[in-house]
């Protein structure tokens, strides 16, 4: 184990949180998210422009010299807590985390890589990393797309988060030079992006089909760039899950503090109080785990793979539990479409699968911390 991680929030991080929260309170209330779920435009790209360019979130992880904020995973984690709490339908995870960290794992000295990063950072384009959302750190390099010597891609990638609004797709493919990341614009001939019906209404997925689409292999790309992006994505998703769980807890406490049955405030019933105390303990524990992962990613700690696996294994389950308790303790109203609890339940349950299930991360830990399987 390396140095003790800094598990607190810095003043800068607190300020960033306040900024994001102000925008979301104003622009992304639950009613708006719900209404958008029933529209043809599941993403709120107006909100994304405000956050991306106005608040500089799109380039949080991009170095300042490439037009970004030069911040670290710690700050991105704080943003994800807020976005998770609001189940905000914006492509932060795909563009500002997965695509950005994948590019940073290539050669940022390379002009193409640098320009892609600049465009993502400015919000001029939206990107995503074309892997199934369920891929987590430690999976083998995907074999579903082949590249020829000219960078022409053929194959399919299913269930890609944020692909439906991405201008730029980063596609892991295997070509004559071996596995690498290939970039193309989503309107390139031969590219088809077909939205799927997602369980999580607020993070759409799409299937990407490449039928002789011309792409550019990125300098310095390879399995390590992909693995780095998946590790960062998994570690930061834990903070989003903390945000989801915290919202579920807060909303349930608020509701039970108001609702009366049997002449009493429902929140005064001891069995419910104890269950909420347990949820609270899981949320504060998840927060510590997510902070440790973000700090390890931010400092490039050698402990990062362990910290990320711990955070994902814990926070996925904590978020699902908090969301399930939120629905149950809201009872009837929690089962309705008009109450936003279901959006958080769907996000929590889908996120349990995203970037590696808790079981996947526990299996990773077995190797990382030397607790080998039987036989």
């Amino acid at each position, binding site marked *: 184990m390396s140095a003790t991680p800094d598990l607190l929030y810095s003043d800068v991080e607190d300020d960033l949180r306040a900024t994001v929260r102000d925008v979301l309170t104003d622009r992304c209330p639950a009613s708006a998210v719900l209404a958008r779920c029933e529209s043809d435009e599941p993403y709120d790209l107006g909100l994304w422009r405000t956050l991306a360019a106005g608040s500089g979130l799109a380039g949080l992880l991009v170095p300042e010299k490439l037009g970004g904020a030069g911040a670290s995973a710690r700050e991105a984690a704080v943003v994800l807590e807020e976005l998770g709490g609001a189940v905000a339908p914006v492509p932060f995870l795909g563009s500002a985390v997965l695509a950005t960290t994948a590019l940073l794992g290539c050669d940022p000295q390379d002009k193409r890589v640098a320009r892609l990063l600049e465009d993502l950072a400015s919000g001029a384009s939206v990107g995503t990393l074309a892997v199934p959302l369920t891929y987590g750190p430690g999976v083998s390099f995907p074999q579903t797309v082949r590249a020829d010597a000219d960078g022409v891609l053929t194959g399919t990638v299913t269930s890609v988060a944020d692909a439906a609004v991405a201008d730029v797709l980063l596609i892991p493919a295997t070509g004559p030079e071996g596995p690498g990341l290939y970039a193309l614009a989503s309107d390139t001939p031969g590219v088809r992006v077909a939205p799927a*019906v*997602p369980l999580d209404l607020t993070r759409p997925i799409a299937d990407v089909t490449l039928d002789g689409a011309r792409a550019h292999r990125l300098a310095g790309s390879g399995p390590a760039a992909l693995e780095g992006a998946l590790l960062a994505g998994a570690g930061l998703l834990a903070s989003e899950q903390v945000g989801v769980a915290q919202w579920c807890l807060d909303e349930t406490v608020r509701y039970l503090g108001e609702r009366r*049955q049997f002449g009493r405030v429902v929140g005064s019933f001891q*069995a419910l109080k104890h269950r909420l105390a347990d949820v609270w303990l899981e949320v504060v524990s998840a927060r510590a785990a997510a902070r440790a992962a973000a700090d390890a990613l931010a400092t490039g700690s050698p402990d990062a793979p362990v910290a990320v696996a711990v955070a994902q294994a814990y926070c996925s389950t904590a978020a699902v539990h908090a969301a399930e308790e939120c629905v149950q303790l809201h009872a009837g109203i929690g*089962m*309705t479409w008009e109450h936003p609890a279901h959006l958080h339940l*769907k996000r929590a*349950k889908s996120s349990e699968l*995203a970037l590696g299930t808790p079981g996947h991360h526990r299996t990773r830990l077995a190797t990382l911390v030397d607790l080998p399987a039987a036989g």
Partner: protein
Amino acid sequence: MTTKTTATTGRGGLDAEEVRRRVRAFLAEHDPATTDRAAFLRARFDAGLAWVHFPEGLGGLGAPRALQSVVDAELTAAGAPDNDPRRIGIGLGMAAPTILRFGTEEQKARFLRPLWTGEEVWCQLFSEPGAGSDLAGLRTRAVRDGDAWTVDGQKVWTSNAHNARWAILIARTDPDVPKHRGITYFVCDMTAPGVEVRPLRQITGEAEFNEVFLTDVRIPDAHRLGDEGDGWRVAQTTLMNERVAIGGGAVPREGGMIGVAATTWRERPELRTPGLHDRLLRLWVDSEVARLTAERVRQQLAVGAPGPEGSGLKLAFARLNQAVSGLEVELLGEEGLRYHGWEMTRPETVDFFGHDAGYRYLRAKGNSIEGGTSEILRNIVAERVLGLPSEPRIDKDVAWKDLPR
């Protein structure tokens, strides 16, 4: 199911043999192949073969309930149409026993026949947005106005309201007495002016239920069931029958949610992991034990010695449906990210096991809420089965209007 000691001979010397004889005589006069369905069902009712344990003249023969299976078997064998009991379950399971017990002769004569034949569908107007677990705290007001009542309020979680001709309704008729004592029970005409039904969409995207808004709805006093102010006691009959209905279905091994997950496990080896294996086996064991527990309850009922275990069945199945469907989503991985579709539909009957894993996961969340939350059921077990004291209650002796809101 085999019965051990149940009496199978009823009043008037009615036994299985005699009942079978009557069914055959009925069939000789009403050939299912050539008789119109509605006419057949009406005739069956009039022959006392609808529910043999009901009185003569009301669709029954005053015979033991167990003999109904003889009737059903004969009629099914003859290819007779049934009354589509799933579609009219609220009428059959809740309204009918209540009308039988508390209704006037006129009410029984008016309502039971079309209820049973399915020509008139019934729904239930009990729950309100502010009165869920605390049903007796309901606010819908009924004010006497000559020979009729004027009803205003809002009800919720009403299945089939949009198809229903009649509703069983409870409303507050006296706010000046403690809450359980100021309620009256009515039959409400769903086609009356002022009844507005709106679909209530739920987290699955479907609208199985409705909200019902009642605005100056007139109900004749002749449609009151039971005495004024006695509605809570009348409603207990209705609710008791609801719980029996929910917990009562026989389930073969792997017959519930676990069967779906087990099939996926068997058919898709590429999804298997050691950790999921252990969880699946745990839930398989729990499901099999829940099935045996339900079977034991049925055996107790069959010998006329019902145990308290019935109270726990709904708790167990809610937990299992939720855990198994949650596991199934996780097992499916990438496929679990997807959903069959979010278009709002209005299904006629409830389906816990249909569509896809995501649907099952979401729908199962309701299993611990509808028909009594798991929290209320645990209270009931603790107090009525284990005999633990109830909590301090402040709402039992105060006039309803003076309760804190």
